[in-house]
């Protein structure tokens, strides 16, 4: 086991990793920017090193300063958390050449799965379905034939396109050729290049991701899925485990595909494979793989009875996954709300400032992961998430009632937060029925004129 782990991150995840280290009897080193000097992760680590001023590019994104901090404190491993340098293959390389263990997969695997094209090719090569698509189509006739092969609906996309321009969804055969022409013409007008390709349009998809983890003792497992379809502009707001959409048979198919993929690339440590699932819950498509721990990992921990951060550290130290993880079976239902310092009724404008009162909910099945406390000032430099509220219940109904209760108890004064918005979502019949897709929040906000 490591003597000392340096946590190359900040906020709630840095604190999470420090707590896991303490329970494993491993010393921890926090690195921090000048803006984070009062952060709880700095206070609770065994040692702390200042690595730069507030802006991330001058501190948390400086690989050389982080390695230097590991050198002067004698840390033998670095946990990168999520975001920042966690999926930076070059940083993983530098760790390795400096003789410091990077807690995660190898730099080569990070590189492979970090490139979207390579990742998709790897998925296909290992029998994991991806959203069917095409190469550039020479003309409308060739495109039409391909569209029929893929199966409608399809999205016609300009290869030079962006910002929604040069894109046309096609639902009806007879409209295809004119839509193709329209997309191409728009692309020529906007980007000077009318080349178009096709992609299968997954209608009202759900974002469902599988947690995987592997060790150097030949264990490659998945720990079930998380449904993260409650998103605003591709940012997750609420996550739950298990997904209300998946049948046991789908879960099996997706789980098997996930394990096959990580075995094929000899993936090590924790990771998440993200899929799109169609509205009927019958087809799944590989989207991408995140070669790190995810923000929403707690819902998996609660349902599967495991501690993922500890397992990451143990795997990196060459140990086998814990027996209770290898034998884990799901129990109950967990929901997480990401509490952001944003005003949901003013276009989610960030709301940094001083928290004059912080009272977090408690009681059975309530977990709050946060680095924040009463009197803390939320700095303006970083993403706006200040806490994760995770509830667990024996059933989904109990979990929903518990989340409503916990959100109602939460008091955060001095800044605006997303809590009132999440309370509205939790009360909505679509959430109670579990019939929400990745477009739901967008439609809900539009209906309310927000």
């Amino acid at each position, binding site marked *: 086991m490591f003597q000392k782990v340096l946590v190359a991150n900040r906020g709630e995840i840095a604190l999470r990793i420090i707590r896991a280290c303490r329970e494993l009897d491993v010393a921890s080193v926090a690195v921090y920017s*000048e803006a984070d000097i009062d952060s709880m992760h700095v206070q609770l680590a065994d040692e702390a090193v*200042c690595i*730069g001023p507030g802006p991330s590019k001058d501190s948390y994104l400086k690989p050389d*300063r982080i390695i230097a901090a590991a*050198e002067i404190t004698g840390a033998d491993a670095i946990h990168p958390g999520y975001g920042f340098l966690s999926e930076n293959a070059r940083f993983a390389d530098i760790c390795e050449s400096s003789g410091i263990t990077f807690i995660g997969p190898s730099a080569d695997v990070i590189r492979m799965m970090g490139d979207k094209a390579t990742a998709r090719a790897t998925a296909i090569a290992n029998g994991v379905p991806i959203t069917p698509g095409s190469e550039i189509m020479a003309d409308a006739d060739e495109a039409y034939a391909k569209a029929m092969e893929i199966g409608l609906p399809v999205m016609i996309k300009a290869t030079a396109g962006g910002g929604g321009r040069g894109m046309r969804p096609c639902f009806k055969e007879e409209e295809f050729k004119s839509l193709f022409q329209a997309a191409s013409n728009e692309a020529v007008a906007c980007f000077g290049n009318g080349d178009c390709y096709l992609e299968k349009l997954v209608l009202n998809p759900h974002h469902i991701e599988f947690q995987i983890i592997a060790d150097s003792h030949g264990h490659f497992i998945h720990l079930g899925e998380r449904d993260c379809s409650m998103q605003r502009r591709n940012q997750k707001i609420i996550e739950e485990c298990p997904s209300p959409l998946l049948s046991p048979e789908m879960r099996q198919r997706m789980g098997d595909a996930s394990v096959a993929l990580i075995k094929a690339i000899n993936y090590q440590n924790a990771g998440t494979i993200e899929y799109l699932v169609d509205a009927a819950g019958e087809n799944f498509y590989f989207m991408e793989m995140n070669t790190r721990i995810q923000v929403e990992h707690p819902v998996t921990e609660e349902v599967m009875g495991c501690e993922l951060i500890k397992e990451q550290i143990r795997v990196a130290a060459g140990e086998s996954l814990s027996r209770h993880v290898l034998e884990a079976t799901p129990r109950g239902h967990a929901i997480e709300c990401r509490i952001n310092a944003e005003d949901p009724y003013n276009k989610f404008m960030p709301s940094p400032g001083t928290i*004059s009162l912080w009272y977090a909910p408690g009681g059975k099945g309530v977990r709050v992961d946060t680095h924040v406390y009463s*009197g803390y*000032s939320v700095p303006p430099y970083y993403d706006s998430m200040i806490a994760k509220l995770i509830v667990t219940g024996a059933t989904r109904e109990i979990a929903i009632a518990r989340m409503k209760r916990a959100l*109602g108890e939460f*008091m955060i004064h001095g800044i605006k937060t997303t809590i009132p918005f999440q309370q509205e979502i939790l009360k909505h019949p679509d959430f109670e029925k579990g019939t929400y897709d990745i477009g739901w929040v967008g439609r809900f906000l539009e209906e309310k004129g927000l």
Partner: protein
Amino acid sequence: MNEHGLTHFDLSKKDFHLKLKKGPDMEELGALLASLPSAPAQAAPQFSAPAPSTAAGAAPPPAAEGAEITSPMVGTFYRRPAPDAPDFVEAGSTVSEGQTLCIIEAMKVMNEIKAERSGTICALVAEDGNPVQYGDVLFRIK
């Protein structure tokens, strides 16, 4: 009250007081908690093992004379280019802009830290061979 989503109703008359509640009055509770005396906002909670920073310049500055030259990076501070060589600068040394003041070693690279302006070194703060973090005071200059 349910019909109108009311959570709290308070009526005070000369001889009676009526209070109806549907649920907890979070506003009242929040005001109560906020009004209680608490530790000053800036003080982070104290723990039995506070995180000692690895600042090399832990000695309190005596008379704070001159301006601080702080570390622009993380690493190990050296006063001289080699163990048996003379120090780059000493107390009282006059330095010109661009002159090397010290070395901070990180990742096997010896980084020369240069003076950003000319002046006279009035205090040597960082200790030779000690680790320094970003922002630690290395010298004072006037």
